[in-house]
């Protein structure tokens, strides 16, 4: 059993979706995340165990490698796709026990900004690490974040911006959320953003990479 967990974690780490998938080339014709997850379920392993002992282990490794510049967006996307393939098997099991997810993360690119690559990557990594993700998309106004926070009490909010000009909107949105309820934790990220800016606008956390967001959530949501 341990061996199957390891194999599944390996498939997630290296982005092996399923048997027919040609990537990575050195895993040609081998079982992928899709097949192994099904196999584990067939053997009576709980969905939660599969998530905790294989999927999250694999995603965490990708997250760390991404942070260390050992892998890049294409590889992380493949890992996320492998994760999706596994989660498709697990989701029906989770539907009956909503408590099994670690917490909720609301994410969006701030008003005026239409860029979504960074936001999507963070969303994928966070989801891959066992959180429910509410993706509000791009060009999101403060009210929409607040509305979502009302709907999911205890959720952490993530704000993304790529443009230097929308950093101001990030500040306004942070202030609006905090004045609505200062207990809502807010983390920010994006190319022009840094720790100084985070301190200046009163957000709770700045992270340069998705793994940092996961670690912030692990600390905050408990």
């Amino acid at each position, binding site marked *: 059993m341990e061996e199957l967990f390891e194999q599944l974690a390996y498939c997630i780490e290296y*982005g092996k979706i399923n048997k027919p*998938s*040609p*990537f*990575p080339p050195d895993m040609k014709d081998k079982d992928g995340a899709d097949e192994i997850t099904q196999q584990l379920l067939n053997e009576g392993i709980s969905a939660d165990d599969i998530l905790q002992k294989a999927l999250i282990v694999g995603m965490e490794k990708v997250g760390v490698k991404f942070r260390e*510049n050992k*892998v*890049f*967006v*294409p*590889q992380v*996307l*493949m890992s996320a*796709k492998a994760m999706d393939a596994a989660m498709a098997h697990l989701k029906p099991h989770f539907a009956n026990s909503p408590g099994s997810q670690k917490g909720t993360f609301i994410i969006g690119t701030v008003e*005026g900004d*239409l*860029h*979504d*690559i960074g936001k*999507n990557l963070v969303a994928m990594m966070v989801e891959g690490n066992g959180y429910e993700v509410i993706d509000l998309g791009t060009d999101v106004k403060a009210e929409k974040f607040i509305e979502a926070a009302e709907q999911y009490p205890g959720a952490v909010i993530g704000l993304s911006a790529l*443009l*230097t*000009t*929308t*950093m101001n909107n990030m500040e306004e949105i942070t202030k609006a959320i905090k004045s609505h309820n200062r207990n809502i934790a807010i983390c920010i990220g994006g*190319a*022009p953003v*840094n720790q*100084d*800016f985070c301190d200046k606008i009163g957000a709770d956390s700045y992270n340069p990479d998705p793994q940092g967001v996961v670690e912030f959530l692990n600390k905050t949501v408990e």
Partner: protein
Amino acid sequence: MKGIELIKKAMRLEEVERIPWVPFVGSHAGALLGMTATEYLQSKDNIVKGVNEAIKLYNPDGIPVAFDLQIEAEALGCQLVWADNNPPAVVSHPLKDGVSLNDLKVPCPCKARIPLVMEATRELREQHPDIALYGLITGPFTLALHLLGTDIFMQMMMEPEKTHQLMRFTTNVALMMAGNYIENGADVIAIVDPMTSQIDPMSFETFVSPYIKEVNEFIREADALSSFFVCGNAKQNIEVMCQTNPDNISIDENIPLDYVRDTALKHKVSFGGNIKLTVVLLMGDEEASRRDALECMDIGGKKGFILAPGCDLAMETPKENLVAVSELVHDEMLQGELRASEAKQMDLEKLDLSNHWDDSKVVIDIITLDSSSCAPCQYMVDAVDRAAADYGDKVVYKEHRIKEKEGVQMMMSLGVQNLPTIVMDGNIEFISQIPPINDIKGKIEHYLSNKN
């Protein structure tokens, strides 16, 4: 020397007398004219007017005609959303929405806004024969992303041959744009491919390198210069970028400039960057802008380096900050003073000057940048030398170059603020301007009369 010559020299890795400076003015020029990005980037007349305003204010050696990576995408049918204070954004990806690659044609240069930027290039060329004009084209990988969206990352892994077909197409578009820019008078073609910062070196070599090499060769054959721009943290790809044989690479503050310098020079490629775009130029003040620019210049050096912001200047960048950088670039004296004041912050100790003075002689200290490379410094030292000649051993003088630590310490110890300065028996007497010999002699007489 003309700006264009400085840029050419830098790109040929020849030593330059002054580091060339290329402010990446895009929609920022719209702000200079008090208009929105939409009004600015949709009008040839406004672009010409805006670039002229930027040239007047920032005294650059080179400047982009337009910084807008959506021009080709728009001509290929991507939908744009326009904004007041940003270049437009691509919001639809035709290849994702059912259009087939076979149905896409390399656009005619008469399409969408292509003729507008080409006409602007032609007019600016006539108006500014001495400034290097940069024609910016969307890099093939970034254009592929505009067309297909982020699905390209997965396609690279799952169906690599399809990605190659797409890159072939976007490269043909890049060649068309480069050719037109060159025909209309651009000196440098900047291939702006920021999305390559998101991929690993192996993917870069597989999917990007062959195409960029081809564009670089095309540009070289047309007797123009090529510069590969990448914004974002592309440290992992600097090496493979250099191996595509561009004349220059340009990077932003995410990548340490010393690393880029070493890598680029190893491959005999010139390099540019990387004044901090947001925390310094946009949000900082003139002082911070000068200091950051100086740091870049000191790391970059006078061989192969072009000073530039990390990427397209934010529209609301205060013009004072860019004027401050421009003044610094053109004033070696200011650079020296700033360098000295930086050194002051490094906790250098003041010198003990108790044995420096003499009861029977006038001691003259001349604080300079370095009389061998700075003309005013040289004239000042010469003037003191000639004035002192008549007094034999009654006068001793020494030059203190602030390029050396001792010079900086002396400058601090004597309380000197400007360069060059003449100090006599510890008193600041002449600042910056070269005094007539007789004025120096008069001062020497004055100090001598105080001696025993």
